[in-house]
């Protein structure tokens, strides 16, 4: 305090608070916990979430604020048990403040870990929250990533003293098509209530009763069925809300995470794909914090889209519908598509908004620079549901990337390919989803020589003479450009299924078997060929550790 006195009169003091003696900058309007969170200091909390309003009801983030010099401290009168007198004696203790609600002030001193009063208060809060908890961790899906478990170890480490039967409440209550609620595990932090109201804009959850009888309830006549229900499970710091999809499927400590980009729509939400490396199976999506794209959230559709990594896959090369080895398929492609550069006017090239920039770049370069094709088309999934929060109507993760890549020869929609089908004899396509009617496409491409590089079953895969099995986004690194124009990198999580290989690798092999110098064999080589396209590395590696 004395050190600041000389400059106090003339200039405004800097926006700095001291937490346990460590100086931390803050921005005007910040709460203590927010400034600490940004600086990487973890103040324990349940109800506070950086993306939600402040409720200050869990009392776990209490900190001690010593009074400014010369001012009396706020104190509370309490009764303290005196073991010598065998009676309660009057005493007082400092009034602690919830750091999630307390605004920062310049030069403010905050005692968190260093205060004995705070440690006592946290242990007491923790004991209170666990008073009626069933402690059924063995059957709880949250076990392993539960705040109650973590904070018990960090701040309590004692048994509860209450001997009475705990309060019993409803268990395994279905809240809707995706969520199950266990009121006994609930600490009523109201994160789910605030999320539904503030982010999903559908205030369908609320709290009923008071004290230790309170529980979360769904509005009468309603179900928890908006488009962001799985986020309520994600924000739940304990095991009260569990996802029906993930329920009892795996224990979280067996799972590993990869930093991926959601493939559900053109928003390109940053996600973690959690998978079990022992059986090469994905189990769930979790949002990954990115202030520019999805903040802390993802929609249900995106959360459940991890299933596309295994469902409806093409796992081996097909020639005329019969399974063959990749070498045989490439040999067949070589005989069918030989001397393609002499018939380049009859070649239609279909790029895919479902595939990564690497895959599209490989096909575009092969077609444009080596074959000399002039007719480019782009395809993807048809339009779907959109909203003002996260969901885009465009259900393709890389539409902007493809349009940007093929800006010299703007790709036309598939409907034009169908309309002018007679002009082409050869079709080389990426992906298998089309936005047009499948029957129309199949009729238009009958009799043509079609080569498709695809990861999933679909209309284009059905008409292919030669079908090469590509990996999905979860099985290879790839770059996707979202609707804002941000190029984002998605990491590989799983090992490829069957004979699948990254799309660009297949295109490069196809080019080589047709006699072109498509010499990309490693990811770094194709990335270098793609430069100067700037790619954004995934957000900071510690993002996985820091939990909101």
């Amino acid at each position, binding site marked *: 305090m004395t050190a600041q006195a000389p400059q106090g009169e003339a200039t405004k003091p800097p926006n700095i608070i001291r937490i346990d003696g460590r100086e931390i900058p803050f921005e005007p309007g910040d709460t203590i916990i927010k400034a600490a969170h940004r600086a990487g200091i973890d103040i324990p909390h349940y109800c506070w979430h950086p993306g939600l309003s402040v409720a200050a009801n869990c009392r776990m983030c209490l900190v001690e604020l010593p009074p400014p010099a010369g001012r009396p401290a706020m104190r509370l009168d309490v009764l303290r048990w005196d073991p010598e007198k065998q009676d309660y004696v009057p005493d007082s203790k400092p009034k602690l403040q919830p750091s999630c609600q307390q605004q920062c002030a310049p030069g403010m001193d905050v005692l968190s870990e260093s205060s004995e009063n705070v440690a006592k208060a946290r242990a007491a809060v923790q004991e209170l929250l666990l008073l009626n908890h069933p402690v*059924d*961790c*063995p*059957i709880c899906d949250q076990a392993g990533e539960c705040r109650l478990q973590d904070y018990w170890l960090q701040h309590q480490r004692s048994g509860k003293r209450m001997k009475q*039967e705990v*309060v*019993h*409440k*409803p*268990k*395994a*209550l279905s809240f809707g098509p995706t969520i199950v609620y*266990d009121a006994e595990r609930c600490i009523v932090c109201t994160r789910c209530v605030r999320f539904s109201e503030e982010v999903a804009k559908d205030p369908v959850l609320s709290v009923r009763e008071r004290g230790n*009888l309170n529980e979360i309830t769904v509005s009468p006549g309603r179900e928890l069925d908006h488009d962001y229900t799985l986020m309520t499970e994600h924000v739940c710091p304990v095991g009260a809300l569990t996802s029906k999809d993930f*329920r*009892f*499927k795996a*224990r979280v*400590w*067996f799972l590993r995470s990869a930093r991926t980009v959601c493939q559900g729509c053109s928003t390109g939400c940053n996600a973690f794909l959690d998978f079990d490396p*022992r059986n090469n199976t994905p189990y769930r999506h979790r949002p990954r914090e990115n202030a520019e794209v999805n903040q802390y959230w993802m929609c249900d559709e995106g959360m459940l889209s991890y299933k596309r990594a295994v469902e409806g896959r093409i796992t081996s090369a097909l020639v005329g519908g019969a399974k063959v080895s990749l070498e045989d398929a490439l040999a067949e492609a070589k005989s069918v598509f030989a001397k393609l550069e002499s018939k380049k006017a009859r070649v239609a090239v279909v790029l895919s908004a479902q595939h990564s920039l690497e895959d599209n770049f490989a096909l575009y370069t092969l077609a444009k620079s080596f074959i000399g094709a002039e007719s480019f088309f782009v395809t993807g999934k048809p339009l779907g549901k959109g909203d003002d929060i996260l969901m885009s109507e465009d259900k393709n993760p890389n539409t902007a990337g493809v349009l940007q890549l093929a800006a010299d020869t703007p790709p036309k929609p598939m409907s034009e390919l169908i309309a002018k089908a007679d002009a082409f004899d050869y079709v080389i396509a990426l992906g298998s989803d089309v936005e047009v009617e499948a029957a129309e496409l199949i009729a238009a491409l009958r009799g043509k020589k079609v080569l498709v590089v695809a990861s999933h079953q679909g209309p284009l895969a059905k008409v292919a003479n030669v079908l090469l099995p590509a990996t999905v986004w979860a099985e290879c690194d790839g770059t996707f450009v979202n609707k804002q124009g941000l190029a984002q990198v998605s990491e590989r999580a799983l090992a490829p299924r069957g004979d699948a290989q990254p799309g660009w690798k297949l295109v490069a092999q196809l080019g080589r078997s047709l006699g072109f110098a498509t010499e990309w064999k490693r990811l770094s080589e194709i990335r270098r060929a793609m430069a100067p396209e700037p790619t954004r590395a995934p957000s900071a590696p510690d993002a996985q550790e820091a939990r909101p």
Partner: protein
Amino acid sequence: MSTHAPESTKPWTKPRGTELTTKVIARPKRDFEVQAYLPAVAKGLAQTMSTFFRNTKEMVLGQKSDPVLEGFSDGVTTLQYPEEKRPYPERFRGLHRLTIRDDGSPRCVACLCCSTACPAQCIHIEAGEYDEESGRHGYERYPVRFVIDELRCIFCGFCVEACPCDAIRMDTGMHAVPYDSREQFIYERDLLMAMTGRDGSRKTANPRHEPGDPSHPGLDREHAH
């Protein structure tokens, strides 16, 4: 192949470029006595016979006990296995079993603590949920599949230590049986639940109040408050 190797490089057979140390071992002598064969046979027989006569003398004079007669007395250490078995220690870790409740359902709640603790990764569990009508709905889950690969198991007993429900035990007192195919060592849930402890019981001596049992408080919002 290169025709000219630099002289400084030593052949790779010499470790670290040092000279090989050798020790010359003398060949056996091939003198007349060995080559003629019979003198050596006579020598060997003499050794054998001297031992025979010494032993016989000791036996007749009673200086040593007779091993044949000894075999007829009590205290034989040979067991006629498998008809006879040595008693095992009380805490011998044998094949696993899954304990059951009074109604025949498994005590296991499929928490996967055992498969987490298992250093051999021989336990595979798939969890399921009890029906809405069941009293255990919401309180517990149960193993739809519970598989132990007894070939992989190292019988360390960590699964038993880890179990919070006393649902898995190794007190059957049985060895893994020598089956004729590997598949038979894969023990499924129903087989594990059918096995008994050494006392012949399929339950455990440590009962507790289970949700759904009459002894469980079974309180809820309607009944208690």
